[in-house]
């Protein structure tokens, strides 16, 4: 069977959906954070698939492939800052559960 653009897009959509469901349903901040990374990787997969299957004069649009590298880099920066904040949170409150974040209410 030939693997077509639709297959890649389906996998990527699935990854995105799993990531978003995880963000909405899970209660552990670390797991939520992993799910957020999953959403970014879903976008990377479909970007690469779109460039691979939309060749112009036999060449892909390299802009989108460069964007993939930027997304990977930004995701790494986001993880560095995000984990630092989660560590600070754990040191202060001894928890990584979203239910315990309830001091700000009106």
């Amino acid at each position, binding site marked *: 069977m030939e693997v077509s653009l639709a297959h890649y897009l389906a996998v990527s959509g699935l990854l995105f959906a799993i990531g978003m469901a995880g963000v909405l349903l899970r209660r552990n901040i670390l797991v939520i954070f992993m799910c957020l990374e999953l959403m970014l990787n879903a976008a990377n997969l479909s970007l690469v698939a779109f460039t691979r299957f939309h060749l112009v004069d036999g060449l892909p649009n390299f802009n989108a492939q460069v964007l993939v590298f930027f997304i990977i880099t930004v995701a790494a920066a*986001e993880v560095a800052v995000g984990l630092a904040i989660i560590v600070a949170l754990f040191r202060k409150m001894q928890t990584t559960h979203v239910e315990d974040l309830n001091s700000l209410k009106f």
Partner: protein
Amino acid sequence: MNPLVLEVLVVSLGIALLMVEAFSPKPDKRLLAWIGMAGLATVFVLTFFVGTVPPGSPTAAFYTADSFAIFFKRFALVSTILVLAMSIDYLPVVARFVPSEREGGGLGEFLALPVLTCAGLMWMASAADFISIFVSLELVTISFYVLVAYMRRSNAGLEAGTKYLILGALSTGFVVYGITWIFGMTGQTNLRAISEVVTGGYPAANIPALLFGVGLVIIALGFKVAAFPFQFWVPDVYQGAPTPITAFLSVGSKAAGFVVLLRVLEPFSAVPAIWEKLSAVLAVVAGATLIYGNLAAIPQQNLKRLLSYSSVGHAGYLLMAVASIGAVLPGREAWPAIGFYLAAYLLMTFLAFFVLAVAGGDEISHFNGLARRAPWLAAALLVSMISLAGIPFTAGFLGKLLLFDVALSAGNYVLVGIGVLTVACGFYFYLRVVGAMYWQPVPDGAAPIRVSVTAKVAMALLAVLIFVLGVFPQPVLSLLD
């Protein structure tokens, strides 16, 4: 001079501040704020001498320096200068909540990061390609994660930081996936190239998928500008973040979000088949944002939370104008009204947050009898509140008038009706703060309020500008045409 020089200078300034922090033995960090403010003021002056990007140069593909972009670069510079000025007085509060072994430790980054954020905001104003939009958006967002969570011995600060982190990262996921689909359906990442593709006989079969991508990008920007239903992070984050950063979030981040929103929507507003759907969605979001922001502000007892709901409400007025772009107001005709409103919003919001930062408490009851304890401070908050409410002869009134005019000429009568009703609502909750200051008794044992010279100068300048722009808006409008 190539306008890109401005951002390069601001980034260098931010790095220089970090170097000074690392190698200077002085424990007094106020010096950093002064260097930062002087540097940013220099860049502000330089914005009047930059040329345009030569078309066809490699820079022009991802960077534009039209008058709108230059206006918002100045906007970002002014807000950052004000944030640094506010931080000078706020540093002792931050120091209490930052663990450090020596005096003044861990405070330098609080003054260097806003400068780097400013560079991101300036890039966002100029971004003409989805790659540069994404990277500059993330530069701003990631710096804000650190700044919001900066006070890491405060439960509220950490909680606000974590909430902002999760929801900011979620909106990053949406924007990236949206860009992916826009790229997939047009084959381009450049906004001008996308515009050429969608206006030149775009196949109708691809429109739903393209709308899916644009919709995701609008959701992500809805998070940034605090539009309903993506506003739920706003009250908590605004309340928990350090006050200067709250002001920065509320002004800088929102303005940059609107600039990017306008730029992203520009190619699609020229295609009726796409735009009729998008503008309907935007109109619904605008109406819901107006109603939610203004109604939810009514029961608030905390001024910071009240300002956060008011910030949601003001996003609604701006979205009302964004939704009115279309056949009657094609291209960029509505942009000056939006730019002017954001400028007015900068003045009045920063004035309110300056008073909040020096008053030393955010409950509204804390401001009881402020008119007798500190008459000038009360007068400053009064000016800010009447401008936010939209009383004539203030910049806030004129800004609202321009936005309503835009919506009226586009025939959005329902939105205008909602807008007028919510303005009436706004009168109630803004003037409640004024009532507390002028008609409530002074609480027993209230400590005297000390206001530094920097804050006094900044507040006086902002208050005067609110009235000047309220009767004489031409200087700002001429920068925007």
